């Protein structure tokens, strides 16, 4: 732990949580929306689908997310910024990561990268399929929905933790 806070490898979860919570200020004031992440996957998916399905089969859900609006592209920029911010933070602290976290060899009972990559793809698919059914993820329902005291979001977050805890205890091995 040398240098300033930007070079530190870890912050208290409370300091980081305060920074993330304060991001609701520009979200509500400038974009007039709450923090969220999972809609951006539809925007990118619809954009890619447009390559071979030019009119997106007239699907109003996909067309709505693919529209060139500030809110749609703000969220795509937000998630790209997350990768950039994490990269900058990692370079400043030197907390480099291996290709695969060491916990996976224990959680999966195998250290074959192909096994992890296949599961990762399937997990990502489930994660966003579920998030789109629920109309939000850990950010949209979790951070923003619970802070707004939304009843639907609170139910979604409870279901999310229930599904996550059951899967981690029953499907994965103890890390």
């Amino acid at each position, binding site marked *: 732990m040398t240098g300033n806070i930007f070079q530190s490898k870890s*912050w*208290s*979860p*409370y*300091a*980081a*949580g*305060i920074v*993330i919570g304060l991001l609701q200020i520009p979200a*509500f004031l400038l974009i007039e929306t709450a923090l969220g*992440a999972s809609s951006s996957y*539809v925007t990118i*998916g*619809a954009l890619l689908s447009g390559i071979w399905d030019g009119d997106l089969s007239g*699907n*109003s859900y996909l067309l709505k997310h693919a529209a060139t609006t*500030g*809110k749609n*592209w*703000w969220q*795509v*920029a*937000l998630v*790209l*910024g*997350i990768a*950039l*911010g*994490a990269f*900058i*933070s990692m370079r400043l602290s030197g*907390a480099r*990561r*291996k*290709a*695969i976290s060491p916990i996976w060899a224990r959680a999966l009972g195998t250290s074959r990268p192909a096994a992890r990559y296949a599961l990762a*793809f399937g*997990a*990502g*698919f*489930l*994660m*966003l*399929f*579920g998030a789109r059914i629920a109309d939000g993820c850990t950010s*949209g*329902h979790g951070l923003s929905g*619970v*802070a*707004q005291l*939304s009843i*639907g979001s609170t*139910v*979604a977050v409870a279901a999310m933790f229930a*599904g*996550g805890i*059951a*899967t981690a*205890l029953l499907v994965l091995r103890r*890390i």
Partner: protein
Amino acid sequence: MSVFSAILIGILMGTVFGFALEKSRVFEPGMIVGQMQLRNFIMLKVFLTAVAVGALVLAVMTSMGWASLHPKGALYVADVIGGLILGAGIALAGACPGTVLAQIGAGYRDALFVLAGGIAGATFYGYLDPVLAPLLKTWDAGKITFADSFGLPYWFLAVLLAVLIGVVLFILEKVSPWRVEMGADVDGDLAP
């Protein structure tokens, strides 16, 4: 606001978001899986702190008339089924839809597969939306909040929520200090 300004603001906000996620280590698969196996509480600590701060800033902003709330509708069937599937995905991915981007930025290669699977899953839902949406909307309670159902002002319940979270976190930190939860390589890997 132009789309260009929205993108610029998004990148700036995302960079701050990603920086905080990386510093808190909450994006680590070891933290997410550890949370879901109830061995590590960094995720809950970051999450609840951000919720409490978000509730407080929204209490101020809505009371001053600077912003209005945008709660999502309460579609209980969609919220429960979607939430369960999303949770299962989070446990197996060791990431959330937002934190997977932080994993990519920090150098985890399997996160690229999570991202690709995520785009595929979101697109799959999109094509099924005309069929699924009517089923998912079978129990629609509207955009209700606890403030509406209790008949109390939003700011009051938001402050109450923040205080309650503060008490929970104070106890949680006593039981399980965050520095211990980090692990030797700050990745939540607590194996000897």
